[in-house]
């Protein structure tokens, strides 16, 4: 029973981790938090659903969705965020609220608010007789881990990753050092959109696919980011997994507060972490200078 709950929590946590990863990537490349991230992921998932409905094989639809999401994310950066670059962080925040409303509204209008079932590439039955975890849940966890390895390598081990991080840390110096800052920002948005799409397509078989799907996940992903630290992909993943397990355990063993005040509990956890260890569990403290 306990093992079952732990594993189920890990699966939920893996989805939080994926969304948290998308947030970390955006932060690593723009130093911003994209409020519309969840809505973009939901729309991508609906696009994948549409492709499947048109008869695409699963992995083809998966790949096409990733590519389209990447392009759409980069396009949003170029068309909407780029013209506002002269504005303060506050203007950009307001723009993301605008994006959030527009995307959510369009998804609602095109696909409607009824829940839809979304297929999973992994078998729903246990791997072998009596296994504590279904193939589907194991698949989600494995894909999540693969993405972490890939992203950590991308951000820490490649020239592109270095350019992305330099752009976020100091766009002016980065430009002077010969980095195409505008292109890096597009790449950052595109990457985050693609990761969000992957998270959405993995989550959709577990919960029903509806326009609010990611809206319910984003706060938890954010909590995971705070727990792990905003600049650490590994931290985001560990944070997401811990959160998923804690949430499942609380809901199971203290159903009264667990179900009704779920969000308040997460919130209290975030506030507690911020007061005790504000930089997160996996991040070195940074210094500022005048």
């Amino acid at each position, binding site marked *: 029973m306990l093992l079952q709950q732990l594993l189920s929590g890990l699966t939920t946590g893996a989805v939080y981790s994926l969304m948290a990863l998308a947030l970390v990537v955006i932060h690593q490349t723009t130093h911003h938090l994209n*409020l519309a991230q969840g809505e973009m992921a939901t729309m991508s998932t609906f696009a994948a659903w549409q492709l499947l409905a048109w008869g695409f094989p699963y992995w083809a639809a998966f790949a096409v969705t990733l590519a389209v999401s990447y392009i759409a994310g980069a396009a949003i950066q170029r068309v909407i965020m780029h013209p506002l670059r*002269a*504005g303060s962080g506050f203007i950009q925040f307001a723009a993301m609220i*605008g994006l959030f*409303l*527009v995307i959510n509204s369009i998804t609602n209008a095109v696909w409607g608010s009824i829940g839809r079932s979304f297929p999973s590439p992994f078998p729903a039955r246990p791997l072998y007789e009596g296994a504590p975890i279904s193939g589907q849940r194991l698949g989600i966890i494995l894909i999540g881990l693969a993405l972490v390895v890939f992203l950590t390598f991308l951000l820490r081990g490649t020239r592109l990753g270095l350019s992305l991080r330099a752009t976020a840390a100091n766009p002016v110096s980065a430009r002077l050092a010969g980095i195409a800052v505008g292109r890096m920002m597009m790449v950052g948005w595109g990457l985050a959109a693609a990761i969000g799409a992957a998270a959405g397509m993995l989550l959709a078989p577990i919960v029903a696919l509806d326009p609010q799907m990611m809206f319910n996940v984003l706060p938890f992903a954010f909590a995971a980011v705070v727990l792990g630290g905003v600049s650490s992909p590994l931290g985001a993943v560990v944070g997401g997994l811990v959160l998923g397990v804690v949430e499942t355990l609380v809901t199971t063993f203290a159903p009264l507060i667990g179900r*009704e005040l779920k969000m308040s509990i997460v919130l209290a956890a975030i506030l507690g972490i911020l007061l005790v260890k504000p930089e997160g569990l996996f991040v070195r403290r940074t210094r500022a200078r*005048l």
Partner: protein
Amino acid sequence: MSGAGRLAAFVTTRGNATLTVLVVAAAVTLPFVLPGYALFAMTKAICYGIGIVGLKLLTGYGGQFSLGHSAFLMLGAYVAIILAPTIGFPLAVALAAVAAMLLGALLGLAGLRIKGHYLGLLTFMVALAIIQVPKASVLVPVTGGSSGLSFRVPLPAATSYGRDLFWYWTAVAVAAAVTVGIHALIRSRFGRALQASRDNALAAGALGVNTALVDVAAFAISGACAGIAGGLLAGVLTYIDPGSFHYTLSILLFVGMAVTGIRSLPAAYIGGALIVFVPNWAEGVSRDLSWAVYGGTLLVLLYIQVSAPRLVRLVTQREARKGRPAGGMP
């Protein structure tokens, strides 16, 4: 400076002067022109405007984001509606302000650790979480759960139109007091310390400003404004439930603050009017895509706000070039 001098300074502050006159003139003439229902809508707009004034103190002068101000309104409204029958409405609103102030201080403490957009999302979570609280089974006897609470205090005015007028003038009076108070606060030593902390926290700290204290205080005061707004709203609406303070209200408050100039206090009431009227307009444009219309309008307004200075410069340069006599270069 004397009280009258302070008021004069308030009215004559640069671009705000005309706006202040217009807003005050509108506030005084509207009740004689508008029918009862529109008056009720205006009263709501003023209440939201009070919340936006608090938000402008926080964002425009303190440099912090909050997407959680519906939480303060909700807390204020519930405190006021629960306490009003026992201790009277004015005292209940005062306590609503205190309660919201405490919540604001708590978020202000979090704001010391987490900045910018992340604080925005954190406060948004507060707005999401708080609408669950009155529905928690432990609290239902006090809060009425999903079915909400009614305002049960006898009013001096008996007729329905009289009630609308009563609430309108109460809201106008409170709004005037809050706006003048916040304006005075911004011009005080505290206000200068707050703006210094916004512009460069390290430098301000080096000059002896207790930036942590100032930032937390700004959040607390901003919360108190929204708490007062919520307390008033409880009386104005005569009935509240968790749905009256849906998280979209936080978004609307933020947008109302954002598009009316983040440092202009009198314009906050225009922002309040936008909250009441624009969603209806957007729904009129397209029923299915009303929020897309709203969001798209917001993006266009932001774009204008960012590029307006550049456009103005372009036009004035062209004018200057035209005005120059041909071959006038020595």
